[in-house]
């Protein structure tokens, strides 16, 4: 189709087409970043709204309101994952849905649901952290190293 169209163009026009195509900015990366920004930002804003509500109506403080907020986001994500909605959003938003804590919950929930057919112990139980495990493993190990370094520095009199 496109080559047929190109044949009707004059050589100059063809040259221009090639020139323009080479200079076209890669739309996919920019577009993906925009989508990730929009969706990731909206999820965080929603988290902020939840946090405000917990502080205002349930007597949480600014420090403790994070726990119920995260738990609520996780419940919503599990439901959306179960109904198959989250995967659709994730396909569109990329990192925007992977990076917030909802992405962590999504990997746990989807792995659990997917492996249910293999049984509740060998399927659900052992595959639950198939994808989320790397986050916990690297998080805990790096936190251990960082804390050890910091405690050592403090013990030596600090900087």
């Amino acid at each position, binding site marked *: 189709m496109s080559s047929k169209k190109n044949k009707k163009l004059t050589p100059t026009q063809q040259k221009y087409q090639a020139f323009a195509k080479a200079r076209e900015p890669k739309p996919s990366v920019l577009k993906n970043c925009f989508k990730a920004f929009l969706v990731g930002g909206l999820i965080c804003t929603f988290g902020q709204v939840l946090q405000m509500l917990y502080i205002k109506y349930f007597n949480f403080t600014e420090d403790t309101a994070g726990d119920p907020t995260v738990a609520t986001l996780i419940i919503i994500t599990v439901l959306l994952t179960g109904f198959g909605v989250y995967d659709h959003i994730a396909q569109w938003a990329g990192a925007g849905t992977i990076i917030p804590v909802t992405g962590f919950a999504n990997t746990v929930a989807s792995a659990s649901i997917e492996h249910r057919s293999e049984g509740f112990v060998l399927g659900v139980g052992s595959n*639950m952290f198939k994808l989320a495990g*790397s986050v916990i493993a*690297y998080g805990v190990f790096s936190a251990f190293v960082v804390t050890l370094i910091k405690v050592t520095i403090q013990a030596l009199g600090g900087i």
Partner: protein
Amino acid sequence: MEKFFWAFIVGGLICVVAQIMMDIFKLTPAHTTSTLVVVGAILGGLGWYEPIIKFAGAGASVPISSFGNSLVKGALEEANKSGIIGILTGIFHVTSAGISAAIIFGFMGALIFKPKG
């Protein structure tokens, strides 16, 4: 109101950084999230993550990088209280809500929903 704006901007920017890591450096989502968690832990150790949370609220505490920060925060608090063993006992102190909720509700999800296809 201002807090919502900064939560949106900062949360969005962290996601853009992750998107760039995935699109341009061709990392898998698992590599990206693991990297962000490690970065969060290092920033937490340097004491730079808490100011971002103070400033942007959920914009910094909802992305996965805050998981690394919370791990360090819990480990440090306990280590200061009960010595070096506190690193082991305190590391999940702050993040317990997130991990427990993910396990409990993920399991409930597996009980309720049937896999597709």
